[in-house]
């Protein structure tokens, strides 16, 4: 075990299989990944290549079948790391107002939890409203989820993931269900939030432009078994703008990522063919 001292998140020889016996699915082959504190890493790849699985491993929602997962220098789960999560489906609670939805983590995570009763109508409320304003939802705190559009719900879901100042932010295709314009707007908002607070972010996405726009590092994965086949740094200056995504350097990057995914897919298909007994 060699441990990278600067890494906030580190996967070492991690594999993961779902199920047992006959129904065993090898979701993740031997994987190494280390992410520095405050980094923004995007995971891209075809569906079923194990992107969500990596997120769940890092969050400690599932244990690795073999290997080690370290977060904040200790085995995952040992250290109480604050984690925020958001998914493609906003999963807001329909019986709570948008503000109360956003404040939910404060009700659960220490040290906020102890003060929740005392501060829910004061400091915490202002904190939620400030965050809502930052994502363009000022004045919507008292509305209920069914009164908002998909894009607005996703903004609120981002707020819920960030309200407790997480050290780790896990985003699983958060903009997957949105239209192109809303999506690009939210890229800008997410970038701003990240630059403000600098959580360590792991973003899963299908959209290569999204990955290149937001991330400082893009990891390309292939399927069966899931594996990281390429790890590239993205060093465009920040704050990045949508206009930059049309510049030659940016276009070249997304094209290279795309080719890498396609060729990895070919490899996987070839590997499948070899597995079929003659």
């Amino acid at each position: 075990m060699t441990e990278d001292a600067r890494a906030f998140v580190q996967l070492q020889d991690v594999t993961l299989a779902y199920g047992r016996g006959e129904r065993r699915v090898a979701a993740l082959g031997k994987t190494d990944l280390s992410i520095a504190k405050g980094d923004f890493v995007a995971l891209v790849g075809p569906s079923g290549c194990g992107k969500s699985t990596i997120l769940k491993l890092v969050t400690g929602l599932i244990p690795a079948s073999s290997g080690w997962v370290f977060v904040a220098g200790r085995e995952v789960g040992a250290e109480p790391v604050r984690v925020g999560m958001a998914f493609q489906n906003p999963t807001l609670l329909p019986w709570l107002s948008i503000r109360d939805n956003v404040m939910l983590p404060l009700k659960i995570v220490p040290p906020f939890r102890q003060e929740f009763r005392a501060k829910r109508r004061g400091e915490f409320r202002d904190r939620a409203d400030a965050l809502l304003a930052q994502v363009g939802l000022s004045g919507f705190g008292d509305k209920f989820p069914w009164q908002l559009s998909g894009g607005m719900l996703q903004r609120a879901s981002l707020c819920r993931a960030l309200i407790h100042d997480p050290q780790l932010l896990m985003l699983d295709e958060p903009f997957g269900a949105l239209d192109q314009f809303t999506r690009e707007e939210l890229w800008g908002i997410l970038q701003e939030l990240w630059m403000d607070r600098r959580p360590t972010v792991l973003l899963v996405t299908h959209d290569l432009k999204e990955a290149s726009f937001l991330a400082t590092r893009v990891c390309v994965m292939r399927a069966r078994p899931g594996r990281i086949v390429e790890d590239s740094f993205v060093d465009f200056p920040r704050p990045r703008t949508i206009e930059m995504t049309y510049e030659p350097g940016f276009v070249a990057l997304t094209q290279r990522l795309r080719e890498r995914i396609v060729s990895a897919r070919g490899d996987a298909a070839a590997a499948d063919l070899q597995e079929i007994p003659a």
Partner: protein
Amino acid sequence: MTPGWRRHLQSAAVIVGFFVLWELACIVFHIKEIVLPRPTQILFTLWERAPAIWPHTLQTLYTTLVGFALGIVSGVLIGALIGSSRLAYDVGYPLLIGFSSIPKVAVVPIFVLWFGAGTVPAVLTAMIMSLFPIVVNVATGLATTEPELEDVMKALRASKFDILMNVGLPRAMPYFFASLKVSVTLAFVGTVIAETVASNLGIGNLMMIASSSFDVPLVFAGLLVLALLGVGLYAIFSLIEGRVIGWAKRKDEFALG
């Protein structure tokens, strides 16, 4: 006139029409009062014998509400247990289904044996009648939490209890209220069964005595009282439901209700 009002008027007209038809049929076919009394006769009996019927009504209402309240408390507790623990589910569900398949009339004598005739067996019968729908609905509501939401909560290191209080139970509320409406009418059935078998007070007992003396209008008056009480409580719980869980009516996924 709004469409809502028109619908209400139409349904009221149909209901009134049903009773008018009943009245006319009795007159036209010369149906004897001892076979099927006319609605006006029933109303008249109810009016005339009100002083005698009233204490029975109160007793039945009281018994039912106490039994129902006990049913709610134990139903929610059992439902929460079954809905949040795998083991409790595997053990509890078969037991519950077995138990609910037993005709409740058969249980009353046992209660009488244990507690003597009177109010207690009736309360208990009302309780076990109303229990099952509440348990099933609360358990179902708890079990339908979205896996992603559960992940969000677990990532926040929420305890099982946190998840239950913040997500599970509120989420089960629409199912819970839907079950209350059904359960309260079942609680009446339970009370009346027990009163018929082993009590000297209550509408069940009243109808029992009336039928053994062939006082058929009084039997029907008793039925009418039960029906009115049932409809009244159903309406009250519908109203509370609308107030408490208005949010659920906005979403189609709760159309099960």
